């Protein structure tokens, strides 16, 4: 409750009164401060608001005003409530009024001091958190309030000592001074922001409001600390900048759709993406929806709706969007919605990513495919459609052609990798050298066997590719191109390897596990283990050692190569098997010795091991429940051995299994004996006792005798026998009891039974015995709810026990006799058994093997846990009925299952079968079932052990392998090439479908047929040398011209690739035969054409050219001036035609390879001079000077073609040089070759043309041939000539500055 102290407008304080009385005073300045700092009144307490403490005076204390005044001064308070006799507030003393009352004397005294208003103001200044100050026009602070000092950390005097501008941030000084001038200029209030330095060197941002009073030459200013706001603003700016940057960099367009209003914000980039300017697209949903391709809008909407319905975490779709220019762009559209609490969509924000290029690339790929198919060149189409990689490489290993499959597998387009060397692009560094070596061999015409290497795709993935290569020779017998055909076998290999490993692994593990389940015969298990391991790892000797308590390792099982000395039967104090090594084995560590001679072992140990011819060894500990049971040891005696990680792993797993077997066997033996023994004993004892006790009661006379007997029994029994009376006092305590409980009979007789029972069980026991006393039973087993009863030994230890109780009515009342056995050991053993069974279950789980056991006599069937898992009865705790089990087998397997089981049960012989198993959801599993019946002496089966292994993974892998093989076969059938596998007896083992077409016989009829039979004697004789080559292990490619059955001859190109078995012997070879009759015909026609065209075109040209020449020279009479001009035009053009025909025929001739070079001694100097002389007239015509450096170097080459090359290059240089410039022709000697160079200062060649310029008709500018009178073939001819000489030609050029053409010719 708030009460104004005075009702008038004069009131400047508020008293806060609660039920308990006055709790606070709020002054006017408190309120001002409250408002200034923006404190939330709803959450503020009165104490927090008050700036002056609550000081009160009683009425009687207010008699002396001066005293009151000094009280106020002393406590620095301005208001003092005055209390009446009953502590009620009767008034408030106010310092201001007091001061007025104190008279004029003080007032006069205070004239030089601040007036009351000034004082009030000053207080104001003191408490306000705002910065207030007064600065003079002289640049110094005149007055500063404490808040200012506090914020900057300087004292008043420090601030006043320097011009205030010194405290302003250097960057803000100019602006601040400008503001000062503005202030000084007029009578206005001005606001600005600047930074002030604090004492610790930081800066604070201040927002100033100030006004100057010109008459006083002072500026009155107040400021607020806005540093926080500024920092926040900066952070916001930064983050906004980052966001913008991110948007820009991500290159995504952003849209933000307010679903409730259907208003959409589209970012600038979004609009740009579609080709629109910022203001061309409005903020409506329609702008988005009307642009989605009509074919896409349906499902895009569906995707969006699914997301709205929260079925999908994101909205994501790829669709086409209409651009401003009418084209469609592929867009990846992603978004995420915001929902309100009711699940209604409020808005969705998303982004557009332009994926046209990816899509275009995809479409382009398809288009290219279609175009290719349309081409007549069928083989090309096949190359691109088969699933095989086909790449064509030139002599430098550069990619000339690269089919679609290559593009798909590598992720590179042909355009990207065209002309690059294959090993630079695809081959991992480790394989480069090998691949290059293979390639070098390919170039020499030897075609290496099919080989496999890895390719690294664009995305970094590695592909294993199996290659077969074909070399293409030119007419000189030089390899010109290599055609590499490959199949990506990555998956196949992985599946193979995985399958192989898994299979071996599973098989062995399964075998051992099965043995462990099937047989308790430890020896058999161990023998199987060592035999299998020796076989699997191809070791020379495998041992299982038992580690005896004296740390001696005794071999208990061994598998060994026949010629080696056995270790079985020796007790070995092998130092590698004892001492510190043993300690390591106990920790599960493995000992690996790859080479005994270099291993860091003492020489005497080596000597010992050498006795057994050991060269390498691997020792794996067999642990069971952390106890070292034995060691699994593998030896290599004939050679050193690098033990592989996976081998060690297999051994380790096996050791686990053996450990299980060992502890299983031991436990079973021990436990069964123990249990049966003890049970019999207990029963007998109890029976005896009963009988004795009954007798005693009947015959008093025999009492003594009986008592002696009884005592004997009591004394000899291992069990505790304790008698108690109705009061549960112990009457009898035998030796067994003494042993078990640790009490002596004499100290415990007469005590209550409770002393032997753990405290928690006492009340139950007491009650129990009472109830038993009242029941009609004579004896019963004692048990607590959990199963066992617990006893309490003298030393306070509790132990589990089995107990029975009997009662005997006597004269003294009922006598209870408790017979009790300590079962701590048995329980421990049982726990161990349980642990071991858990281990077994785990082993089964790993191996995916379940086991079962059926007792025919009791008809009892038991399943292991894993079997439930495998068969999918996971929810069942009991075994389903035989019928239910049987029905789960696949109906097609019913007969097999039924027959096998019936037969097995009848004959008592082990069985094995594979079958399918159908789970309720329709999934089919593949199971391998084995059974092993046990027969009695009459040969009747009385028990069956069985295992069921889940082999679905294996079957799946086999199936997928089969599928990929089928695919391969499909491919090979689809190829228009004869593909066959021929064994080393030269008989067909596989033929593809093309054989059926060629030979008109079904494939089945070709199987096993000899090559001779199929091709006929004559053709076979032609093929025989190559067949022999293939069978000797070399790949061979050849072309022959056989005759078919109808007597027509045809050409075929064949490649034989030998196939080796594991020993490196040739098992047979792959044969690939292609009909190249058409190709041969085309080749022949082409060469004929060159020859005919050469004559048929030159003859008419000779006449035309000759006549025009005469005409121009005026030999046929004077022509009119236009006549001369026209005749010259005809001459120029016929001249060009002649050159074109020459060039075309030259090139055709060169490329057909019919022309070989005839090397003779040449002199580079003479050639250069000759070339320069030949071109001199042309140079003069173009006003070009040819500079020569005719260095004389001797070499072997054909003069005319090299001269032609030089003149071609010179002619180009002249043609493309500006008039008045120079061209240079020179040569120099390099290592083993001559380097010629022709340089000009012409317009140069753009970088992208540097390679293609040597192709036919590939001038820099398509119009060059017309303008410059060239044929577009000159450089192609030059390249041909140079390459024919074994040299290289290239150009270096700076566009706009000129070019240098280089070529090299080897000296010899």
């Amino acid at each position, binding site marked *: 409750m708030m009460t104004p102290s005075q009702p008038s407008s004069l009131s400047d304080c508020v008293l806060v009164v609660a039920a308990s009385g006055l709790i606070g005073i709020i002054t006017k300045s408190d309120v001002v401060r409250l408002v200034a700092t923006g404190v939330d009144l709803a959450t503020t307490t009165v104490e927090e608001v008050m700036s002056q403490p609550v000081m009160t005076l009683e009425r009687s204390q207010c008699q002396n005003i001066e005293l009151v005044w000094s009280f106020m001064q002393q406590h620095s308070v301005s208001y003092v409530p005055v209390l009446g006799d009953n502590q009620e507030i009767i008034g408030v003393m106010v310092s201001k009024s007091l001061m007025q009352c104190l008279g004029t004397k003080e007032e006069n005294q205070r004239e030089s001091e601040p007036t009351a208003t000034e004082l009030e103001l000053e207080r104001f200044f003191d408490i306000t958190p705002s910065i207030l100050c007064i600065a003079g026009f002289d640049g110094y602070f005149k007055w500063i309030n404490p808040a200012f000092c506090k914020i900057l950390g300087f004292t008043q005097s420090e601030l006043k000592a320097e011009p205030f501008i010194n405290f302003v941030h250097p960057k803000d000084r100019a602006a601040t001074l400008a503001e000062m001038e503005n202030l000084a200029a007029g009578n206005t209030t001005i606001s600005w922001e600047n930074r002030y330095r604090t004492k610790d060197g930081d800066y604070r941002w201040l927002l100033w409001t100030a006004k100057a009073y010109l008459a006083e030459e002072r500026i009155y200013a107040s400021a607020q600390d806005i540093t926080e706001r500024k920092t926040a603003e900066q952070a916001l700016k930064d983050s906004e900048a980052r966001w913008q940057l991110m948007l820009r960099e991500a290159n995504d367009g952003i849209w933000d759709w307010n679903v409730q209003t259907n208003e959409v914000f589209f970012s600038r980039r979004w609009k740009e993406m579609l080709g629109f300017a910022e203001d061309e697209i409005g903020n409506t949903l329609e702008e988005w929806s009307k642009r989605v391709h009509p074919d896409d809008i349906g499902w895009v909407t569906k995707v969006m709706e699914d997301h709205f319905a929260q079925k999908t975490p994101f909205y994501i779709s790829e669709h086409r969007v209409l651009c401003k220019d009418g084209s469609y762009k592929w867009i990846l559209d992603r978004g995420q919605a915001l929902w309100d609490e009711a699940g209604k969509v409020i808005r969705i924000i998303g982004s557009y990513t332009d994926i046209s290029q990816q899509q275009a690339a995809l479409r382009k790929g398809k288009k290219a495919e279609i175009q290719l198919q349309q081409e007549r060149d069928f083989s090309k189409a096949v190359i691109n459609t088969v699933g095989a990689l086909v790449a064509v490489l030139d002599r430098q290993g550069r990619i000339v052609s690269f089919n679609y499959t290559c593009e798909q597998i590598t992720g590179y387009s042909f355009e990207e990798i065209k002309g690059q060397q294959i090993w630079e692009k695809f081959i991992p560094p480790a394989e480069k050298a090998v691949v290059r070596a293979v390639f070098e061999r390919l170039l020499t015409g030897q075609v290496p066997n099919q080989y496999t290497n890895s390719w690294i795709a664009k995305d970094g993935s590695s592909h294993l590719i199996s290659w077969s290569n074909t070399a293409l020779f030119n007419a000189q017998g030089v390899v010109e191109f290599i055609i590499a055909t490959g199949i990506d076998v990555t998956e196949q290999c992985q599946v193979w390897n995985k399958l192989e490993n898994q299979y071996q692994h599973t098989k062995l593990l399964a075998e051992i596990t099965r043995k462990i389940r099937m047989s308790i015969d430890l020896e058999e298990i161990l023998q199987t283990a060592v035999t299998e391991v020796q076989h699997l790892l191809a070791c020379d000797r495998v041992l299982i050692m038992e580690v005896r308590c004296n740390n001696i390792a005794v071999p208990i099982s061994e598998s060994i190569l026949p010629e080696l000395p056995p270790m079985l039967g020796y007790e070995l104090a092998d130092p590698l098997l004892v001492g510190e090594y043993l300690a390591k084995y106990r920790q599960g560590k493995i000992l690996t010795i790859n080479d005994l001679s270099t291993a860091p072992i003492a020489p005497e140990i080596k000597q010992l091991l050498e006795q057994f011819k050991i060269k390498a060894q691997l020792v794996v500990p067999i642990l069971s429940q952390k106890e070292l049971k034995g060691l699994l040891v593998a030896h290599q005696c004939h050679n050193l051995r690098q033990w592989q990680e996976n081998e060690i792993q297999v051994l380790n797993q096996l050791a686990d299994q053996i450990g299980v077997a060992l502890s299983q066997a031991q436990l079973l033996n021990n436990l069964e004996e123990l249990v049966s023994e003890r049970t019999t004993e207990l029963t007998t004892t109890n029976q005896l006792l009963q009988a004795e006790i009954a007798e005693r009661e009947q015959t008093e006379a025999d009492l003594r005798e009986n008592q002696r007997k009884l005592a004997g029994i009591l004394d000899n029994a291992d069990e505790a026998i304790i008698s108690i009376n109705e009061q549960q006092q112990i009457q009898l305590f035998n030796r067994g009891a003494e042993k078990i409980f640790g009490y002596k009979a004499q100290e415990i007789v007469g005590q209550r039974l409770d002393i032997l029972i753990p405290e928690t069980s006492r009340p139950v026991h007491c009650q129990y015995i009472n109830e038993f006393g009242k029941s009609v039973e004579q004896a019963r087993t004692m048990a607590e709810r959990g199963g066992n009863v617990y006893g309490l030994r003298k030393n306070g230890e509790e132990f589990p026990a089995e107990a029975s109780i009997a009662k005997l009515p006597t004269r003294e009342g009922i006598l209870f006799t408790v017979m009790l056995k300590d079962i701590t050991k048995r329980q421990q053993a049982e726990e161990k058994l349980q642990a071991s069974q858990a281990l077994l279950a785990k082993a089964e789980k790993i191996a995916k093997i379940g086991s079962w056991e059926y007792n025919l006599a009791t008809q009892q069937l038991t399943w292991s846990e894993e079997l439930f898992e495998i068969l999918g009865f996971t929810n069942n705790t009991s075994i389903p009925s035989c019928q239910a089990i049987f029905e789960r087998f696949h109906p097609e397997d019913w007969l097999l299952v039924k027959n096998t089981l019936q037969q097995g049960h009848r004959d008592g012989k082990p069985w094995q079968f594979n079958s399918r198993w159908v789970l309720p959801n329709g999934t089919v599993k593949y199971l391998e079932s084995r059974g092993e019946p046990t027969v009695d002496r009459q040969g009747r089966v009385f028990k069956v052990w069985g295992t069921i292994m889940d082999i679905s993974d294996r079957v799946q892998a086999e199936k997928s392998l089969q599928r990929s093989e089928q695919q391969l076969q499909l491919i090979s059938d689809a190829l228009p090439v004869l593909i066959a596998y021929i064994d080393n007896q030269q008989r067909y083992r596989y033929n593809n479908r093309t054989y059926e077409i060629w030979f008109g016989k079904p494939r089945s009829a070709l199987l096993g047929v000899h090559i001779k039979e199929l091709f006929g004697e004559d053709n076979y004789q032609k093929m025989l040398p190559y067949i022999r080559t293939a069978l000797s292990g070399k790949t061979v490619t050849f072309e022959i011209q056989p005759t078919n059955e109808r007597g027509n001859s045809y050409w075929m190109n064949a490649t034989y690739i030998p196939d080796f078995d594991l020993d490196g012997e040739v098992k047979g070879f792959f044969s690939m035969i292609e009909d190249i009759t058409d190709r041969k015909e085309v080749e022949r026609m082409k060469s004929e054409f060159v020859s005919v065209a050469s004559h048929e075109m*030159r003859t008419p*040209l*000779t*006449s035309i050219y*000759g006549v025009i020449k005469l005409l121009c*020279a005026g030999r046929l009479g004077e022509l009119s001036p236009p006549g001369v001009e026209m005749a010259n035009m005809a001459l120029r053009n016929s001249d060009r035609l002649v050159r074109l025909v020459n060039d075309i025929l030259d090139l055709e001739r060169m490329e057909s390879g019919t*022309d070989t070079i005839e090397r003779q001694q040449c002199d580079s100097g003479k050639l250069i001079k000759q070339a320069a002389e030949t071109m001199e007239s042309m140079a003069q015509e173009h006003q070009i000077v040819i500079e020569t450096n005719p260095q004389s170097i001797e070499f072997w080459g054909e003069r*005319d073609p090299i001269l032609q090359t030089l003149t071609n290059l010179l002619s180009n240089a002249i043609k493309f040089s500006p008039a008045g410039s120079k061209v240079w022709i020179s040569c120099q000697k390099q290592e083993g070759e001559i380097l010629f160079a022709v340089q000009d200062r012409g317009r140069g060649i753009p970088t992208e043309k540097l390679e293609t310029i040597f192709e036919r008709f590939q001038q820099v500018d398509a119009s060059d041939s017309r303008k410059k009178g060239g044929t577009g073939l000159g450089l192609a001819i030059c390249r041909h000539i140079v390459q024919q000489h074994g040299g290289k030609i290239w150009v270096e050029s700076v566009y706009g500055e000129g070019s240098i053409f280089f070529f090299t010719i080897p000296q010899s």
Partner: protein
Amino acid sequence: MKKKRILFIDDEEDIRILASFCLELEAGWEMITASSGKEGIEIAASQQPDAILLDAMMPEMDGLETLVQLQNNPKTKHIPTIFITAKVQASDRRRFYAAGAKGVINKPFDSLTLASQISGFLGWSNQ
């Protein structure tokens, strides 16, 4: 000096006319022509020209065989023979030289310099 007499053997009439015309005009030689190898050999034997210009590709008897026969005939074996041919392959040229040709001129030839080319091959000084 006696006017040189040249025999030009070519199955193409146009070429014969053109070659005869320009060699007479440029060098002032007396030109006689034959349209086949067989005819050429006869004329050569009877007229004893100073040189024979021979086309390589002719029906029935081609230039090379004509040359061989000319070389085997004692009446004509001394007459220098030059091929004027559209066959421009180096292997052909080598065959022609091997058979005894004194020179090989490619078609189409330059009608203005044909005479000087021939003179050059035959070692005749320019008239």
